[in-house]
């Protein structure tokens, strides 16, 4: 297939904070990453895949400098895992790919590294095997993921294509509110 041939797949752009899941062989998730990280999860037994896209900030009151907002990161990863499980996936069967986490601007805070470190550590702690990673460096990436087969293509692209500049916004609702019955 020539590089300019149109994809036969329906391409769905995965924006920051989103975590779509699909088993449709006609669907391809796509995203462009700078400092952001994308996690692709795949359950090979049922042909189901999901992808998220996030950029965690360094909390203002960070306990240790250089650490991402782990509270929010765990939440975002759990949202993707739960979406997979709701569609029949088993956490024990999940395989992961990680992409992104670049530091596009030399001399600025290494927010990409911080996010990549969080994502790797999360997968280790959850015992989800990391089948492939393309993280770090100073180049933007485009990731195309076919959720029904688990196929991923990751290419370097021009930094100008990256629209992300800010950490993934938290939900509008008040975080952690408690409702007693």
């Amino acid at each position, binding site marked *: 297939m020539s590089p300019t041939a149109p994809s036969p797949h329906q391409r769905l752009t995965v924006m920051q904070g989103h975590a779509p899941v699909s088993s449709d062989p006609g669907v391809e998730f796509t995203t462009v990453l700078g400092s952001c990280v994308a996690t692709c999860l795949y359950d090979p037994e049922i042909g189901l895949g999901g992808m998220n896209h996030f950029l965690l900030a360094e909390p203002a009151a960070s306990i240790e400098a250089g650490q991402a907002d782990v509270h929010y990161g765990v939440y975002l990863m759990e949202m993707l895992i739960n979406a997979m499980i709701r569609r029949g996936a088993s956490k024990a069967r999940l395989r992961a790919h990680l992409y992104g986490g670049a530091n596009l601007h030399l001399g600025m805070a290494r927010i990409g590294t911080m996010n990549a470190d969080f994502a790797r550590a*999360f997968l280790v702690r*959850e015992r989800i095997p990391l089948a492939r990673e393309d993280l770090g460096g100073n180049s933007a990436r485009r990731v195309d993921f076919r959720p029904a087969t688990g196929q991923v293509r990751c290419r370097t692209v021009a930094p100008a294509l990256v629209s992300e500049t800010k950490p993934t916004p938290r939900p509008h609702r008040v975080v952690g*509110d408690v409702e007693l*019955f």
Partner: protein
Amino acid sequence: MPNRSQKSTRILTGDDSASMRALLNHALTAKGFDVKQADDGQAALEWLAVNEVDVVITDINMPRLDGFGLIERLRAGSRHRDRPILVLTTESSDEKKARARAAGATGWIVKPFDPEKLAAAVRRVAH
């Protein structure tokens, strides 16, 4: 700082995410609570069959036995019929919240949790 002269409130957390368990353990022990942890509803149920706690905090989506099942099983027996049970979940749908309430949950907290609010809720329901 926890007041060591007072007996700590005992909490059992049920969550299948090791990352979430680590966050909960750190947040709650820092507030002076005595924290035990189970990695799913079934493990929580088995632990509670032979141990006492003051408050249970449970996730909803867990393998083997989910949070709804855990609450229903605890309420069906006499041992934990009145035990405060807080649900801590990524689920935000009214339907799921109503189901937890009907099963006998004491409260509902949507992740990501705020350590201060969570600790305040535990103190409020503990008895």
